[in-house]
Each structure stands twice: as C-alpha cells, then as structure tokens.
C-alpha cells in the first residue's frame, strides 16, 4: 500500500464526529423475519427456538445478536422513496462526495448491549470517525474510512454499536480480491 498526502476536502472534515442520518425504523422487530437468519445459518440455539429456554435465560424472546443492523435496513422499495434505498448512508455519501465509484468493506465490529426483543422499534445514528489520506492498494487508489453506528430501542436503551471500515477507490487491476465489494 502506498500513501499520498492529498488533503481531505473541508466539507468531509467537518462531518467527522458529527451524528448523521439519525432515524427510527418504520417497522417493528419481527421474530419471524429473524428466523430467516437462523435458517440461513442453521443456528439451533434454543434461546431463539424454545420459549421455555428464552423465558428462563433471557426473560422472554430475543433476536439473534448478529441481526443488529437488520432492523434499520430499509425496504428495497416503499411509497415515496426515490432511488435505491441503502443501509449505511454515510458510506455511500462518502463515495459520491469523494468521487470514488467502488468500495469494499474490510472490517466490521459489533458490540452487543441489551438484547433486541420482538416489537422493539430501533433507532440509529451514523458517525463518521475518520477518513485516511489517499492510499493505493491492489484494488485501486482511494481512501479508507471508519463509520460507527449506534442502535437504541424505543426506551432509549443502547442495544448495540457497530463499526465499519470501508475503502472507497478507483479501480486499477483485479477489483475484488479483498474484502466485501459493495458496488
């Protein structure tokens, strides 16, 4: 990887540390939808399938931990929506503002606090934590950025925090030998 000292635009610098895209989901947490994740991963953990185990250990049903972001992901389409509906809007904003058409996610951190429960209404906010200088990797030339997402339930309780590291870039060579390409 090589570095360049190209300056970060002031409009991007001004966004670092500032909560953006604060929103509340327009649907409540739905156990049957969470079971799709359990089915997709053949996860037989009885706290998610056996109500007596859930009552005993978690004071009632809870959602699989890894579904944390699920409850804030937009519908593919809904009335009044314009254009593609995407999760992690800050990531797509950065791609557009920095003119970087491609991107990969390289790192994901999930921290789990109070469990998410059926009927919860989840809110979140996205915070841009950092943007690197210009880097050249085997994927291309662009910038790394770190975005944190905090999730709360309708009572204001923190249910989890996610952190994503993305790399937005212009292609040069093999485009997808690392990370999870998003576009």
């Amino acid at each position, binding site marked *: 990887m090589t570095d360049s000292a190209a300056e970060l635009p002031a409009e991007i610098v001004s966004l670092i540390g500032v909560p953006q895209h604060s929103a509340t989901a327009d649907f409540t947490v739905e156990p049957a939808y969470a079971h799709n994740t359990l089915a997709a991963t053949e996860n037989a*953990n009885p706290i998610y399938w056996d109500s007596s185990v859930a009552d005993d250990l978690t004071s009632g049903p809870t959602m699989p931990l890894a579904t944390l972001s699920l409850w804030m992901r937009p519908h593919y389409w809904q009335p009044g929506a314009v254009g593609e509906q995407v999760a992690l809007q800050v990531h797509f904003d950065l791609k557009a503002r920095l003119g970087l058409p491609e991107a990969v996610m*390289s790192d*994901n951190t999930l921290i789990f606090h109070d469990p998410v429960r059926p009927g919860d209404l989840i809110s979140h906010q996205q915070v841009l934590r950092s943007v690197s200088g210009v880097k050249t990797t085997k994927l291309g030339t662009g910038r790394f950025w770190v975005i944190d997402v905090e999730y709360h339930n309708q009572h204001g309780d923190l249910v989890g925090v996610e952190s994503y590291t993305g790399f937005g870039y212009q292609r040069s060579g093999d485009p997808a030998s690392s990370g999870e390409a998003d576009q």
Partner: protein
Amino acid sequence: MSTTFESVSVGDTLSELGYDVTPTTVVLGALASRDWRPMHHDFKFATERNGVRDIFLNTPNQAAWFERYITDWTGPRGRIGRMKFRMHDSVFPGDHMVFAASVTEMSTDETTQGWATLDIRLSAGGRVCTSCTARVALPSDPEDNPWARRGDRWKP
C-alpha cells in the same frame, strides 16, 4: 449444556464447522439480513461489475455464521459481547467453508463476569477468507446466567 468458564483454558481449540456453500446459502443469507445489494444475488453483476467469480457471502451473514459457530460451542448460556472481523477474501458458491477457533485469553472483569477471547478463522479452499476475534461471556457454573446482566454489570 453450556460451556462454563472453569472448563476452558487458553489454547483450547473448538471443533471445526464445515459447510458447503451453495447459491442458496448466499442468497438466503443476504435476504435474511435485508441486504439487497446485487452482488449477493446477481451472478452477472458480481462477475461483470465486481470482477469476482460468483456471488458471495455478505457481511451481516458472515456475522451470523460466526454467532452460530460461537454459540454451538458455548451453549445457550454463553453470551457474545463483541465480535470484530476482517474480510480478506470472499466466500463463493462451491466453496467448502470451514470455521476453526482457539481460545487466546481468559479474563474476569470487575463485575466478576468471566470472558473467553476466541481467535476464529473462516477458511475456504486453503484461503483464510475472514479472521474474527470474539469476546464471549461464559457462565461461572451451570446455573450462572450471563444474560441476566444489565447496565453496569454488562461490560461487552
């Protein structure tokens, strides 16, 4: 049965989990996580736009596979505090993915909750596709329940 803190030591290894990835594995996981991006269901987009050989597992679904692998080991009383993973390469249909892990640290926090730190590798065809570090709360005995912890008594 649940794995207890006292039954685990640094250096312990977890049983491997192997799974044959199919297009259904990828699409089911993507839609289950409400991830509509086309590289997780559209072969032409993945191959022609992204330049990879097929559709591939998305990030939230990988997190869900790690959760399943960890709690297969802990049992229902095990409670994951955090997971951090880095994706080095993609997982495609036709891959036989293998999860393997070892215990790298055992610690107890100021609330007396015992934690195991796991170093997990998701490999396919000899490639380490994703590496993950997880911090997992384990019960001190078969009756203890980390899920009962709230507020200041839960430090993930």
